[in-house]
């Protein structure tokens, strides 16, 4: 839930130690969560319909994987000696899904105090045990852009991860992917839809103020950069005994933006604020890498294409707030037709489990082709995140990040069978199903043990059930969307 208070944070912490224990057992795709799956050096996936995204679809195709990379793609590949063979006849292989807007695996989402919180960094609060990593893996997702929420005009430093469930936080980062920074425009940073009781309105409270907030931050950053550039020049010229300028952790990431070393991912909705940001970026000489949500992007698609900015949007969300009232499910198709690189993102751990279905909707709404629709959740987000040399399509030399379905993935009837990252099977439906009885048994053993060990002072016996107390209240149908919209979340 991407709201102003860190709901994720402490989610696991407040639970019983028992629950943590249970989680450790229950969350594991096979056995122990701490142990990543084995990676045979050579894997052959054979007899599948291979949707390469880059070079069409191969019927009865095979993919040879060596040391985590795709070594060969074609119709007649013989299994090398010692290769692990994955028989996939009747199944469909696509590049692993890339979610360009996610809040999973994070202990905290918004630093809600100030409207420029560029000093905070997602990498420092990664939670490798977030169950949503596994659930999204089970939806075919292999990489995700982990962003702050949208409480602030400038939110915080982001990073791209691979969903390497079972690995420690340090191993989640997508190696070599340029880090980013989250911006937010419109209703959320100006806090239209909620107020903190007893506190005055926070600046900025209008779209005018949001622009000035970002402009002021970059003016500062430009001065700061100049101070450092001057200092370095003088050091390089051989000047001695110089005192280095004081470091400013808020401005450093903005300087990286100015230097093209950090991508800007900006939450936005309305056409006017979109163009505002593009003007502002031009003023300071930086590029906006992606516009997130960008629900009115279809109104200014030519301008987006001209600016070379990527658009990452929802499939069919609308009307949860005023700035989402002109949202249309044709957005992805309309922007695509005008030459914008478009992706469909989730912004929500559950939504991410069916991004393939969300992409399929753009065939109905706006008439994208099967390939174009599939690109919305594979190659296009890879391009937007600057990782397309590594992932996003099934091509020789790319990482073996793949999702295998039992039906055409652009159907509501398709179910993920296996998800591979770096040539390792991180999700295997068959194993998941096979392990359930075992997990239930272990859970029962632990629960029984707890019940036995518990003393019974003033509480009634019925209050002893472990399900009571630590559990959060039952979730409402779309808790994230609702709470997010109400509280100025990342929506």
């Amino acid at each position, binding site marked *: 839930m991407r709201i102003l208070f860190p709901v994720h944070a402490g989610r696991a912490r407040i639970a019983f130690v028992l629950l943590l224990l249970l*989680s450790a057992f229950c969350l594991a795709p096979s056995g122990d969560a701490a142990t990543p799956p084995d990676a045979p050096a050579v894997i052959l996936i054979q007899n599948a319909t291979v949707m390469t995204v880059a070079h069409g679809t191969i019927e009865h195709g095979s993919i040879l994987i060596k040391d985590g990379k795709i070594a060969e793609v074609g119709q007649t590949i013989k299994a090398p000696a010692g290769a692990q063979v994955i028989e996939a006849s009747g199944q469909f292989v696509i590049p692993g899904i890339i979610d360009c807007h996610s809040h999973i695996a994070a202990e905290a989402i918004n630093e809600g105090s100030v409207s420029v919180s560029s000093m905070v960094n997602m990498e420092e609060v990664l939670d490798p045990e977030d169950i949503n990593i596994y659930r999204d893996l089970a939806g075919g997702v292999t990489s995700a852009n982990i962003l702050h929420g949208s409480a602030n005009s400038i939110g915080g430093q982001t990073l791209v991860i691979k969903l390497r469930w079972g690995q420690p936080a340090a191993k989640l980062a997508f190696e070599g992917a340029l880090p980013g920074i989250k911006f937010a425009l419109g209703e959320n940073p100006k806090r239209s839809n909620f107020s903190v009781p007893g506190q005055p309105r926070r600046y900025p409270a209008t779209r005018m103020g949001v622009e000035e907030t970002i402009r002021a931050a970059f003016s500062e950053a430009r001065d700061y950069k100049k101070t450092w550039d001057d200092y370095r020049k003088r050091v390089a010229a051989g000047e001695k005994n110089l005192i280095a300028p004081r470091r400013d952790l808020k401005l450093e990431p903005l300087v990286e933006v100015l230097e093209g070393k950090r991508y800007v991912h900006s939450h936005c909705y309305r056409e006017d604020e979109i163009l505002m940001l593009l003007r502002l970026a031009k003023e300071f000489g930086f590029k906006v890498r992606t516009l997130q949500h960008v629900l009115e992007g279809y109104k200014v698609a030519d301008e987006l294409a001209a600016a070379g900015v990527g658009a990452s949007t929802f499939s*069919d969300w609308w009307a949860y707030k005023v700035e989402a009232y002109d949202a249309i499910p044709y957005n992805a198709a309309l922007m695509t037709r005008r030459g914008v690189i478009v992706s469909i993102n989730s912004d929500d751990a559950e939504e991410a*489990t069916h991004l393939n279905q969300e992409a399929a909707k753009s065939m109905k709404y706006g008439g994208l082709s099967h390939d174009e629709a599939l690109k919305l959740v594979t190659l296009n987000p890879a391009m937007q995140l600057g990782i397309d040399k590594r992932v996003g399509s099934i091509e020789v030399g790319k990482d073996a990040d793949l999702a295998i379905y039992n039906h055409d993935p652009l159907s509501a009837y398709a179910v993920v069978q296996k998800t591979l990252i770096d040539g390792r099977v991180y999700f295997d439906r068959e194993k998941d199903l096979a392990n359930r009885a075992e997990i239930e048994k272990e859970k029962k053993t632990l629960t029984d043990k707890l019940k036995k060990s518990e003393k019974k002072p003033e509480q009634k016996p019925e209050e002893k059930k472990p399900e009571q107390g630590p559990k959060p209240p039952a979730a409402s149908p779309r808790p994230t969307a609702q709470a997010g919209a109400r509280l100025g979340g990342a929506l």
Partner: protein
Amino acid sequence: MKKKKVTRFSSPLYFFNFLCLVCLFGAPAAGAQIQAPSVYAITHAKIFTLAGSPIADGTLVIRDGKIAAVGAAVEVPAGAQIIDAKGLEVYPGLFDAVTQMGLSEIGAVGATVDATEAGSYNPDVVAASAISPSSEHLAVTRASGITEVLAVPASGGFDFGGSRGTLGGQASAIHLAGWTVEEMLIKKSAALVLNWPQIQTQTFDFSTFSRKEKPYSEAKQEYDKQVNELTDWIDRARHYAQAMDKGSVSKYDRDLKLEALASVVRGQLPVLVFANRARDIRSAIEFCDKQKLKMILAGGAEAYKVKDLLRSKDIPVILRPVLSSPPDEDDPYDRELTEPAELAAAGVKFAIASFDNSFARRLGQNAANAVAHGLSYDEALRAVTIHPAQIFGLGSQIGTLEQGKIANILVTNGDPLELTTEVKYLFIKGQLTSTENRHHQLYKKYAERPKAPN
């Protein structure tokens, strides 16, 4: 799986085709229905009546808003407007059994939301009173093949300030077309909303904007207090109903809330009980059993844990979307997706609903996802057509394609649950109804935007 049709290329032209057809009959009012003719014949269609096997090449005749005939050997009446549906499929319109349709326009803007009344006990408020027939949601929703919904107060929206109250008001069953709510109504009062109290140890305090933890004993006390209050309301309503029966109410002040509850305690009006946790569901069943209330469960995230009880008490369930996160961290990842199949196997009658307005058009998608996880295709289709109709006592009027039923009909180019299927024609109350809507209008407008100068 019965069907896995994937339409790879959709044609935006179908809207224009549709408009051409519309032109034959006269201009449609914005998002509304076309008057006359009153007799239609849909011919050469594959017809899924849901009341017997599909008819491979059938005819369906609509007269005066009702289905006059359906079958393989049905004659086209003279003067009927013929819709040649060769290659197309005909289904009953879909029924979304929990929405805030017409009650909520823009979630975050309180002024546009009339979904939840203040206070905990509002049995007398009725959804139909506040349904806006010109809500954009109606047209957007019906474009995806949903022809009727239940508009349910206190079931969502953003105007509840953290609490939806206990007795939330009466839900109304409506057609998704009509110039006035009177024209839209199927049943003004279809159920009374009961948000079952929860034992909440964690709450969010909006006054201090922080999370609050509460000891279990304290939370339980508050829960007991709420259940006692509820019991008291039902007791008083029973006395009031007795007084009404004896004609002695006139001696006292009329009490609108108790009057509204009278049909509930008489077992005439069902209670639509929102509960997700197994413990809450059990408590609600026990309560309704004791008070002799006719219960329908809504939500039911953990209904699978109490399926046998639900079956033995004959309590139907309106399931929340299967595309929802499992309630617990240690639940299997597909916990929600497999629930419909489990309930079906246990013999529990259920419908699947969106519980939303904006996501109402995901109704078919949710049903299809249940099929992908073990539910039979037929059951899935029933869960969004005849089952909700039967659950709210409308089974003789809608939900299948049978002679005499209201003609709420969907003509598609394929499986109505699949993501890429297009609605070709839509009939509501026997009238050809436009699928044009705000989204498509904006699409057309901006698709035609001249190229921007560089």
